[in-house]
Every structure is written in structure tokens, then in C-alpha cells.
């Protein structure tokens, strides 16, 4: 199983239901909304991936497999843009 961690220079804040993220080194910024914001928030709160998938399935009203695909897709995207890095 791949493990992810935030890049050390990433900070974020919740605002009006969105998550605003800034990489303090590169000054890149991102905004997450809706289910994507929920996924980020639940992971940041420390829920294990399977619980996040269960909650996303209920939130999106989709089967667990589809919620898992959604989460995997988001993690891959966040890794690609530099919000996450692979690590212990």
C-alpha cells in the first residue's frame, strides 16, 4: 500500500466550506471544494483510508468501490501537483 504525507511546506485552512492550501516554499496555491475538500479534511483529521472511503460513499451516494476510486484519483492528483509526497 502506498503511503502519502503532505509536503512539509504545505499549510491549509478551511474557509466557507473550502480548503485553501498554500505551499510556502513554491507559493503555489490550491482550492478544494465539495467531496474533494471533505476527503482532504477527513484525511487531515487522521481517519484511516477505509473510513474515509466509507464516509465518501455515503456522502456521494455511491458504492464503496466507486468512492475508493474517487479517493485514489484525488491522492494521485495531489501527488502530481506537489501537495503530497510518498513517504512513511
Amino acid at each position, binding site marked *: 500500500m502506498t503511503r502519502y504525507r503532505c509536503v512539509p511546506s504545505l499549510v491549509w*485552512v*478551511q*474557509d466557507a*466550506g473550502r480548503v485553501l492550501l498554500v505551499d510556502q516554499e513554491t507559493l503555489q496555491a490550491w482550492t478544494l471544494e*465539495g*467531496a474533494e*475538500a*471533505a476527503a482532504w*479534511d*477527513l484525511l487531515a*483529521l*487522521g*481517519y484511516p483510508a477505509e*473510513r474515509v472511503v*466509507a*464516509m465518501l460513499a*455515503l*456522502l456521494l451516494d455511491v458504492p464503496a468501490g466507486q468512492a475508493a476510486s474517487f479517493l485514489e484519483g484525488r491522492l494521485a492528483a495531489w501527488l502530481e501537483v506537489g501537495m503530497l509526497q510518498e513517504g512513511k
Partner: protein
Amino acid sequence: MFLVPVADRFLFYAPLDSLIVLIDRTAARQLRRYLDCRQPVTQGPLQEIVQALDPARELPLPRQGDFVPSFLGLLPTRGCNLACRYCGFAVGEEPQQRMSLELARDAVNWYLDTVQRAGGKHAEIHFFGGEPFYAPEVVDFAVHLGRTRAREAGLTVRFEVATNGVFDERRCRWIADNLDAVVLSLDGPPDVQALHRPYRDGRSSAEVVERTAEMLSEGPAALYLRACVTDATVERMPEIAAWFCERFRPAGVCFEPLQPPTPPARAPFEPPDPWAFGRAFVLAARILEAHGIEAVYAAADIHTRRTSFCPVGQDTAIVSPDGTISACYLLPRDWEMRGLDLRLGRIAGGQVHLDRAAVAAARALNVYNKPHCARCFCRWHCAGGCHVNHGPTGPNGAYDRLCIQTRLIALRNLLQALDQEPLFDAWLQDPSAVKRAILQPSDRLLDVEV
């Protein structure tokens, strides 16, 4: 229209006309004559009073029509990590059920659909307990679902929680960032908190709750401190208020007198003396107000006109972990002791079943059906108070604890609105005058001896 004697004058109060006037005995007699037999008022200032009285004023009405909850209350669990020595919820004695995420989903979806169908623009979701963050997954899920679904429905949504503040810093930051209002139970400085609100193992919760209050003071969520007042702490209310002002930045402070336990039990604390509570509240309120902090004692809020004091009668939907929808967040055991059944329906298997007769019965629990309130000047503010914890059944003037403290504080609020705080203080120094006003059996203008 009401008349309350204050020292050698009378406070004339027409709450539905928002009219508060301090008059002398002669004017009071003239007003009585006018109202009793329509004898014309010729004196200038009295004419202004009479003209301000609107014969076609609209009375506040109980809820009618379709059931559209004023807010959705979720009880994630009745469990709690504290063992407050006055707590009537008696948690810890038996395993506490936690709300399933499926039930939370069904409750949120039903509520938002109902608001949207009714053409509403705003939704309110409140979390009560036990301690809601003893089942944090329910809160986390419901907030994200509520936010997502509200956006889809074109609604704004506000989240509020009543909490004991016992959680870690990460949770505290999350609350500050994600919720709109936090009602934090904190009874006072460390010795008071240790006395009232220990952990189950007896340790004090003071340190962690103070840290929570400090962090929430810095965040965007509106912080309301809720202090339960017992016979052991009533005289310390001004000191508690000053300590709150010094340490934290709340939007408001709510002092709640301890309610007698139901069923009666041997408890280490008693409810405070209502006279002492009323006097101490006024002193504490002045300290808070000097710091720009709202002092909350809801029953004496003279800016509100209502027919039901609490969620009951206001079409509130409180969903318990077992799926019961009720009008009240207290334990069914407590309602039943008063001969009440406040269940409104049930959510099960994704279906919501509302009992229309039960909704009608809850709506009927309003001040129009509380004859002992009919002649009280606080009628439209207190509306008879909590249906479960406050149930005087005697004749007019058979005031109980809640009535006495409410009348005392409301009278201060009315005089404050007239910039007459010095008069209130002088009046308070005369015990017989205070009792004459507060224990006056009827405040109706035509009933008061002038």
C-alpha cells in the same frame, strides 16, 4: 399591558408594542382609567403612550402549517468523557449508543429537502449530546454532508455545537475552522471547574477546557461560554464573569442555574437561590457588558417575543442515536416524569415517519396554554420556560425559582433599556419593595393596586 411597581414609580410595559415607560402614580391611575373605561387622556406625555398602543397589534403565534424544522439537532451519542457532578444525563452507567453514519445521512438529507421544498434559504444543524465529540465521526460526516447538500440545494447552512471542550488541539482547530458557533461548558476558574466538572476518574478537566476556550477565542467560530451555577457558586458569578473577560474572548456568556434533578436524587449541589441568582446575574452582566460581551439569560431577553421558550413548540427536529425524532434533547425519562411524550416521529430504514398528532401536541405546548403565565410581564419572553424542568401549576403569583429569577433579571433589563440602572440599584436595596414587585400576583395594568 403590564405595570410593575419600582420604588415610588411604576414601570409600564407593553411588550407587543415595544413600549417601556417609567411613570408616576398619577399617570398610572390615568392610564388605568383610559384602559378601563376609555376615559380620554388629555395630558401630553400620556397621550403619546396611548397613541403608541396599537389596538391592531399582531400576537405572536405558535407554529402552524407544514412541519419545517427551525433547526435539525443531531445527538451523535449520549455518552460523555466527563462525569459532571450535577449531570442529569447519568451517562457512564450503561453503554451509550452511537448514531450510525447512515442515520446521520438520512436525517440531514430529509431536513435539507424539507427546508428546500418549503422555499427556505437557510438551514441550521446543531449537535448536542452527551458530548458530541465523543462520537466525532458523526459530526465530521454530518458537517461535510450538510455543507455539500446545502450547496447543491442553494441553501446557506450554519453549524453549532454544545460541547464540554475535552479534546485535543487538532480537533479544537477543526471546530474553530468548520463550525459557526460553539457553546462551551465551562463553569468558572479552575477550582470551580474541578468541583463541578471532573473526568470520570475524578481528575479536573479545567486545564484542557481552558486551553480549548483560549484556542476558540482566537478562531472564527463564535464562542459562547455556558456556566452552570449551583448553590456553591452563585455568589461567585461576578468573579466568574471577570475571569472569563480576563482569559477569553467569548461573544457571549450564558449563566444557567442548575435544575433540580429528575427524579429527585441526593446530589452534591442544589439549585441556587433564585433571588441570589438574579442579583448575582445582574452584577455579572454588568462586568461582561463593560467588555462588550453579551450576558445571556434567555428567559429574560426582552428583545425576543415568543410563544415557546425552548425547541419544543418551535418545530425543532432532534434526532437521537436510535432514530427517534423528538422536540426536546432531554432524556425521554425526564419528559415522562412530567407526563409528556415529546417524540415526533422516527427515522428508520432510510424512511422518515412523522406523527402529525405528535407535532400538533408539541406545538400546543405554548404560552397560550400556560394559564399561570397569563398575567406575568415576562410572558412573551420566558413563555413559561422549559416544559420539562419548569411546570408551576398553581394560581397566578405562585412563582417558582425560574419565575423569580426571570422576573428580577427582566426588570433590570427593562430599566437598563431606559438608562435607569441607578433606580434599579436603589430599588434592590429595599427588600420589601423588591418582594412586592417580583411576587406581585398579576402584573396586568388593571389588576395592579395603584
